[in-house]
């Protein structure tokens, strides 16, 4: 039988002040099962009254060993696990992984596939921000926002289901292109969403942006300067709220983002409200990108959505009956996969939360030798003690919401 060991807290003593050890301040455990920690996050809080003196995040409750598992799967099999990392940004995770594989093996992607990738990634960004907005508002006691946001998110998940057959775990983007072309109904579904969503954004602004209760809870809370934010590695809206104009879609464009006309919203206050404004503005910008994407998509009607490089991408089903070569490629790719060189690449993309980076290393074989996910949630959580020092427990809840963490993303 497994022996239970006696545990002392000696090895945690260096994390708290001497006053905590003498009993002058209180140590309080927040989470892992706490509705405001957005998942299974545990925080050890050192409190004086209600003021947070120190906050020690404890993560790993959702560790699933995905990086280890991916080493045991072939390149195309391992992609299925990428959906499970950040479950609010499944399309974005697929995209990051596929771009890394394509970079490693030097695979081209047809323009139509790139446009569909961008449209879906932006729809996913809106869906992810909707969950953020709903839960952030719920934490700050605006219950109805949560219901509205999830209603709108459902429309996006329906679109994802339309194209891939799955609401969340899509695995629709594949190395070298897409699983298949979008169905005809896709255009109407996205156009409906584009027509209907701007009014909803207005409604959210009406409910929150000038709401004195919301402003009281968010303005001047969790302030971080631009230098500190960069030093702590914050990215995405969390960094842009501090006035740094940085987005991987602009700085290191991928999937043809350089061809789209959009702005990267920034704010200078660096507080919870500034981060809120940045994300709210991103709704509008994502809609602009999707609108332009739809135009491009209509021009590229009938164009291929998968690379023609048969050494990496299986041939279409229709060719199998007539072409011996296609049959051989089909068999080879579905039984043995493809080999990648013994090299390493790092592929950063802009996920809704910030910079999502895939470090991918091959060893010449058909399985990744090492995959590392640089996940924004992991890095943002690390800055939580800096953001929350000296504030109240109630403010801590607002800050956790504002850095937009997903524990599946941080624990991997």
């Amino acid at each position, binding site marked *: *039988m*497994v022996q239970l*060991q006696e*545990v002392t807290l000696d*090895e945690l003593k*260096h*994390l708290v002040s001497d006053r905590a050890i003498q009993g002058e301040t209180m140590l309080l455990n927040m989470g892992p099962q706490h509705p405001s920690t957005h998942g299974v996050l545990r925080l050890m809080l050192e409190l004086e009254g209600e003021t947070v003196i120190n906050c020690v995040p404890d*993560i*790993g409750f959702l*560790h699933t*060993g995905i*990086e*280890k*598992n991916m080493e*045991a799967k072939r390149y195309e099999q391992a992609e299925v696990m990428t959906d499970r990392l950040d479950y609010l940004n499944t399309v974005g995770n697929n995209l990051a992984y596929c771009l890394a594989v394509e*970079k*490693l093996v*030097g695979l081209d992607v047809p323009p139509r596939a790139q446009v569909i990738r961008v449209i879906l990634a932006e729809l996913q960004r809106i869906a992810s921000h909707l969950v953020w907005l709903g839960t952030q508002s719920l934490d700050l006691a605006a219950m109805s926002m949560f219901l509205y946001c999830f209603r709108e998110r459902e429309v996006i998940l329906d679109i994802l289901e339309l194209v891939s057959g799955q609401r969340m775990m899509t695995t629709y983007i594949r190395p070298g292109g897409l699983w298949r072309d979008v169905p005809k109904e896709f255009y109407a579904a996205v156009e409906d969403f584009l027509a209907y969503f701007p009014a909803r954004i207005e409604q959210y602004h009406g409910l929150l942006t000038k709401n004195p209760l919301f402003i009281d809870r968010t303005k001047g809370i969790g302030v971080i300067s631009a230098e500190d934010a*960069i*030093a*702590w*590695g914050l990215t995405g809206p969390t960094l842009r709220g501090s006035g*740094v104009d*940085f987005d991987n879609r602009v*700085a*290191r464009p991928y999937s043809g983002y350089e061809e789209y006309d959009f702005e990267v919203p920034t704010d200078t206050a660096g507080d919870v409200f500034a981060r809120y404004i940045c994300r709210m503005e991103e709704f509008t910008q994502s809609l602009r990108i999707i609108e332009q994407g739809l135009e491009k998509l209509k021009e590229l009607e009938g164009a291929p959505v998968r690379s023609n490089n048969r050494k990496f991408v299986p041939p279409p089903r229709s060719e199998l009956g007539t072409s011996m070569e296609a049959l051989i490629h089909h068999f080879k790719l579905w039984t043995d996969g493809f080999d990648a060189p013994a*090299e*390493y*690449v*790092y592929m*950063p993309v802009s996920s809704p939360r910030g*910079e999502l*980076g895939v*470090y991918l*290393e091959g060893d010449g074989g058909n399985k990744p*030798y*090492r995959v*590392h996910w*640089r996940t924004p949630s*992991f*890095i943002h959580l*690390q*800055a939580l003690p800096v953001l929350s020092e000296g504030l109240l427990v109630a403010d801590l809840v607002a800050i956790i919401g504002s850095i937009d963490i997903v524990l599946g993303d941080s*624990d*991997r």
Partner: protein
Amino acid sequence: MNDKLQQAIQTVKARFEVEEHTFSDEHSLIILPKDLAAICQVLRDEFQFNMLSSLTAVDYWPEGEPRFHVVYQLYSIDDNITLRLRAAVPGDDPTVPTIEGLYPNANWHEREIWDMFGIEAEGHSDMRRILMPYDWEGHPLRKDYPLGYEEVQFTFNADEIDRKKPYVKE
């Protein structure tokens, strides 16, 4: 290649013992662990590599010598350039100097490579496991750590597996 990146690589090459590696327009410098902190200092202060994007490790067991590479992905927001450092760490003494004084977000990353690879960051302020439970044994992302399936017992290895798992027969 960007001029500033070229300049940074030349400077580091002139001052330290490094080996350059380029693939797909990404530049890596393979360095000695003892130079790590000094090189990071030069890159951060003289070339404005102000963000540590990513920090991870790779295990080359059993062939590799040195066994590990610790991979540092540095990024400069102002100039939009990336440089990767790879510290080659031997398997019998897996330590790297900590860089949390230069990049505060290295703290959790270094805890992660300790947790997952058993590579210790010397001088780290809080060397604990981060993702695995605190009483976990072994370092899961090492290549000699099995994926966790049940080993099948045959006549040639039955005794060995019995020895490893005495609780099965209790």
